[in-house]
């Protein structure tokens, strides 16, 4: 019993962080049609931002990190991506890869490659039956779930969200209806960057911080996006839950290397068999009802 509670709590914690990254990746892929290889490195920037602001109270540093991410996203979109939108898939892929390398090297130059760490703002432990679990992980997971709920409500229940979804669906017709593609691209990329940075900031107190930390999150986040239907905004969140659920189960019985190998093998087979991803029925139902 206690081991299942532990597994459940680990699953909630890991899937919430992955869901935030997958959501941000899906947002960029849906709106800009770009695979952002740098998304993991943006998480790394978030972790280092928290390390750089470790003297500040956590609840002040966290929103500041979000602002840093938003501004960084605007700079990257205006300074790099807008010049390569019409240059084809490979060019945009290489451009974001280049951005990732610059971010890694920049951080390594400023902070060195030695591992860093920050203390969680909540150091207590919660007892659930026989299981003792860190308070911070539960609070951070709850915060991420609340944030994702708000983001999905904005996307599906507000005029801004309607404009954004229209722009993802058909950017040309959205422009005919007065929606600026340039403004929407910049806003989406900045928001998605800020969310990835925020995810890194929230995970930072639970990991060893180093310049390549984003790599381990990138592959599962991509799979979470790929197994959901193209253009879906809620799909990557459920994709992340599915990926993490499978991984958590595998990890419960196997060592991490074998579990990862089997997970990615299963996901690769799934994508070959179902390249259009899953139409998550409850999201479709919600789209129909909204």
């Amino acid at each position, binding site marked *: 019993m206690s081991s299942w509670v532990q597994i459940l709590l680990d699953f909630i914690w890991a899937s919430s962080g992955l869901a935030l990254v997958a959501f941000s990746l899906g947002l960029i892929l849906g709106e800009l049609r770009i695979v952002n290889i740098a998304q993991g490195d943006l998480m790394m920037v978030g972790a280092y931002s928290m390390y750089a602001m470790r003297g500040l109270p956590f609840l002040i540093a966290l929103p500041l990190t979000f602002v840093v991410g938003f501004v960084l996203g605007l700079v990257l979109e205006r300074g790099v991506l807008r010049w390569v939108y019409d240059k084809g898939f490979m060019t945009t892929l290489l451009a974001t890869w280049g951005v990732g390398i610059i971010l890694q090297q920049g951080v390594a130059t400023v902070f060195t490659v030695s591992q860093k760490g920050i203390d969680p703002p909540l150091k207590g432990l919660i007892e659930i039956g026989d299981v003792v679990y860190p308070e911070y992980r539960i609070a951070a997971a709850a915060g991420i779930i609340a944030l994702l709920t708000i983001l999905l409500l904005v996307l599906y229940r507000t005029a801004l969200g309607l404009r954004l979804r*229209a722009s993802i669906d058909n950017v040309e017709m959205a*422009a*005919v209806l007065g929606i600026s593609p340039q403004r929407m691209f910049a806003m989406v990329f900045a928001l998605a960057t800020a969310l990835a940075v925020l995810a890194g900031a929230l995970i930072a107190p639970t990991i060893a911080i180093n310049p390549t930390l984003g790599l381990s999150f990138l592959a599962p986040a991509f799979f979470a996006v790929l197994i959901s239907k193209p*253009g879906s905004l809620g799909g990557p969140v459920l994709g992340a839950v599915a990926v993490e659920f499978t991984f958590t189960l595998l990890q419960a019985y196997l060592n991490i290397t074998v579990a990862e190998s089997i997970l990615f093998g299963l996901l690769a087979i799934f994508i070959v068999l179902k390249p259009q991803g899953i139409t998550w029925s409850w999201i479709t139902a919600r789209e129909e009802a909204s």
Partner: protein
Amino acid sequence: MLFAAHDIAGGYGAIHIVRNISFELDAGDTLALLGRNGMGKTTLLRTLVGLADRFAGGVAVDGKPLPPRNPRALARLGVTFVPDDRGVFARLTVAENIRLAQLAAYGETAPDVYALFPDLKRRMLQPAGTLSGGQQQQLAIARALATAPRLLIVDELSQGLQPSVVEDLARALIEVTGQSGLALILVDQNPKLAMRICDKVMVMQRGEVVASGSSAMLGSDPRFFDLLIVS
């Protein structure tokens, strides 16, 4: 003068498709743009609304010149467009497609589009991508009208649609243009339909206008239909 196009040359990238095209429209004017396939009608419409490259000439609304490749600028001045693929937002519901247009409305008095197309009201919660071709065209026209435009530009109104649907769409356009002073530019492969809806006609061949006049005058000229026959 509501809308003026002067010496327009347009196309895509290095490919010039239309040239030397000029015309003007006042409020309530309805213009049918006719010609065989591949004569540049769609490219002309897309150049006018800013979805294709404009190499020369000018487009003006209310005498104010508009930049090329900027459909938003036209939207802000009450010009809207229905492309030949209908351009509905497939993942959005019918109601969301209409709501989006209402958010972008130029004027305050848009027609009741659900009264014009009652079938859409029954399908408000249905994703637009799951509608039939005729229903998607109804939605595309309804969405355009929901922006309360001053000029509506429609590419291929009747393409691939059954006659009863085409008749409903034609009736709706005649009703709205007759009542509200809405100007219309219509491209259609069916000249009789287009000339029933529109008072004026322009015929294009190889990217240029080769005949123009009132629908009544050109329609009665025996040489007119020769211009539209595939040779």
